[in-house]
């Protein structure tokens, strides 16, 4: 995503690396740079925490219940299929 040339990274770069970081897709060098930044920057550490909470909450979305219409449509589909 971002090519980091300098040793230190700034917040605006750090936040764009969090997904690659969580996915384990950063090079070792970039990972070290990000982790160094996160240790020194409370804001970016909080940002990473919020991204993790967002992922966790998204994972809590349950499939909605079927609407009665969808359910009866589907039963029709099965009936048609079985009678063919």
């Amino acid at each position: 995503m971002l090519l980091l040339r300098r040793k230190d990274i700034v917040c605006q770069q750090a936040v764009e690396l969090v997904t690659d970081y969580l996915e384990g897709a950063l090079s070792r060098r970039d990972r070290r740079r990000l982790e160094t930044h996160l240790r020194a920057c409370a804001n970016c550490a909080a940002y990473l925490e919020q991204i993790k909470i967002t992922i966790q909450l998204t994972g809590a979305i349950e499939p909605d219940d079927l609407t009665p219409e969808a359910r009866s449509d589907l039963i029709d589909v099965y009936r048609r299929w079985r009678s063919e």
Partner: protein
Amino acid sequence: MLVGRYQQPMLRLARSFVPSQAVAEEAVQDTWLGVVRGIERFEERSSFKTWLFRILVNRARSAGSREHPSAPIESLHTVDPARFDAHGQWADPLEPWPEESDDRLEAATWLPILKSALDDLPSRQRQVVMLRDVEGLSNDEVCGVLGISGGNQRILLHRGRTRLREILEAELKKG
């Protein structure tokens, strides 16, 4: 019931490929028909869910391209540049979120907000976030289902998650 478990996620995914709910429902129905007739060969090496979503994506894509020849251009969405100063540092300190946001109780109040935010994501971001974070597929599985590269998948995931965090942050500031 199997169908009950997958119907809504399939509809939501299909909807991201096609212009109307009716076409999405058709694609889902087609998918189930294909499944029950055994037209599509189940590959042992993939999970049932991955296989099911792959069939759906193929059907929805061909339905979508019939009705909608050109896909809309997606906006590039990363963290708002206005949040940073000239040196690339946070202009204002980031408020940490309350601990209770981890609780299931708290989650219950946030879920409707998150659900509608998910529906508002550009379609390709929505597809990746749904499959990864809602359905829990692995990155390889998502790449297989959508036919995209790992790098592309990470970019879409990044934009989608960034946007969802932003929405939650805005909601927290309101409350």
